[in-house]
């Protein structure tokens, strides 16, 4: 009950924050504009709408995860709002899990709204529904859950600026992790190869959640691969939350 109470409160904080609406409005505008951009292409309208729509949904989802995530714990300590909460009979890990769940809930709603708009525009252009788009958005949502957990982890011990930098770095490197691995295998010397491979192992492989291009081109999706990605995501989120809890558990709130 405590975790859920804190999650609902975190969700409430986000939906009463203008930043969320600003990001969401901009995202919806960009997704909507994809229809006009599609009109400039020859015979590629459907692909442009879906590609741009999914990319915008993913990018702005990441913005929300990073910019709200980095303040999740830091703001509570800075504004001393957690004093009255931690003094209640709750475990510190419950507080942290509640904060995480609240932001994930916020992301679920915002990514859901963006995905539904992409789905509707694709229907407008194609003349038929493409439900696989929701699967692509859902897979992206799993990647955002990892980004949110990373932002939460940094938020437990670092300032918002540093947390934003770290999380952004993880997001960018994570999206390029496949390329990093290729680079390590093909070009670098043995020392560099090992270092780059270590980086590949530490940073979450967010590229494996990008199934948008397969969906857009109508390529078959392997359920086993999707399940493996979901398992990987859950394990990674679990590890990041475990680290965040371990740090938060021993913090003094002076």
């Amino acid at each position, binding site marked *: *009950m*405590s975790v859920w*109470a*804190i999650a609902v*409160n975190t969700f*409430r*904080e986000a939906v*009463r*924050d203008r930043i969320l609406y600003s990001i969401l409005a901009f995202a919806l505008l960009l997704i909507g504009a994809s229809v006009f951009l599609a009109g400039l292409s020859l015979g590629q309208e459907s692909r442009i709408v879906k590609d741009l729509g999914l990319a915008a949904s993913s990018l702005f989802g990441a913005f929300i995860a990073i910019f709200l995530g980095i303040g999740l714990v830091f703001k509570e300590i800075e*504004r*001393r*709002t957690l*004093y*009255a*909460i*931690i*003094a*209640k*009979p*709750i*475990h510190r890990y419950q507080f942290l899990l509640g904060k995480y769940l609240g932001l994930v809930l916020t992301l679920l709603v915002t990514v859901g709204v963006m995905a539904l708009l992409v789905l509707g525009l694709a229907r407008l252009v194609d003349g038929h529904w493409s439900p696989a788009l929701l699967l692509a958005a859902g897979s992206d949502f799993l990647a955002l859950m990892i980004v949110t957990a990373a932002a939460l982890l940094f938020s437990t011990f670092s300032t918002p600026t540093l947390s934003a930098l770290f999380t952004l770095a993880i997001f960018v490197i994570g999206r390029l992790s496949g390329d990093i691995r290729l680079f390590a295998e093909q070009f670098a010397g043995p020392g560099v190869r090992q270092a780059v491979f270590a980086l590949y192992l530490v940073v979450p492989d967010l590229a494996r959640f990008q199934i948008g291009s397969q969906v857009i081109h109508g390529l078959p999706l392997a359920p086993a691969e999707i399940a493996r990605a979901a398992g990987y995501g859950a394990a990674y989120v679990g590890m990041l939350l475990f680290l965040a809890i371990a740090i938060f558990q*021993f913090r*003094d*709130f*002076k």
Partner: protein
Amino acid sequence: MAAVIEISGLRKEFRVGFWQRRTPVLHPLDLTVTAGEIFGYLGPNGAGKTTTLKLLTGLILPTGGSARLLGQDLTEVAAKRHVGFMPENPYFYEYLTGREFLDLCGRLFGLRAPVRGERIGSLLCLTQLEAAADRQLRKYSKGMLQRLGLAQALINDPRLVILDEPMSGLDPLGRKAMRDTILQLKAEGRTVFFSSHILSDVEMLCDRVGILVAGRLRDVGRLEDILTTPTEAIEVTLAQATPALLTALGTLTQGPILHQPERVLLRLPDEARLDRALRLSLAAGARVVSVAPQRVTLEEHFIREVRGAAA
């Protein structure tokens, strides 16, 4: 009387500076607060009062020692189930309304919806926040936030109420209301442990006080015990005193005799000299206007303790 707070050797060190040097802010503290009493925890700024309260409420972790709240170890979350805490200068979620915030606090205590609704209604009434209940906290004044802080501390119907500087920032009316509420809590059988540096309030409210200076507990006791022993001096006001009488009294007084229009004021060090001075005065035909024992005020006692620690 059952012990509600049992602190044994509780201490806290913070790491400060670039080299993370260990700095003790609370030296081993032993203190027991019994059921039903109002305990005032006093000390100058930086003495370690808030540190103690934060240790008791789990906001910071002890470096050593232990504490039990209502018989349960501090490290157990269940220890806080019957404890209400009001932090100093309450900072709450400003995007919530007063009612929503109290509801959140009730949920964290695991209260069911009907109980929460009933409790929130009565607490809003107690703290006179009914009219502002559905207003966002960003629009609350400091006094209103302080009252909401008290309301959230009472949402679980606590047996122990811990208040950090509850009078700070309140106007005289607000302070009076807070004092009345604290006395009401005691009348309801609750134990109140509060820190303060407003000594007049403490003197009016507390059954016992503890004085903390530089992280060490200097004195603990009932106010009567701390303040009545020893009597500082006895002031006697006389009328119609003759110069010969004043010369005779001069050997008994502590300090000079103060001359006022038609009256004189003597300061006598003890009851034996008072007795002799009164006999002399009455025999010389003087009129005794008043006899007033001068007791140590809490403020004087407090200042002595602080200066004693500094010396």
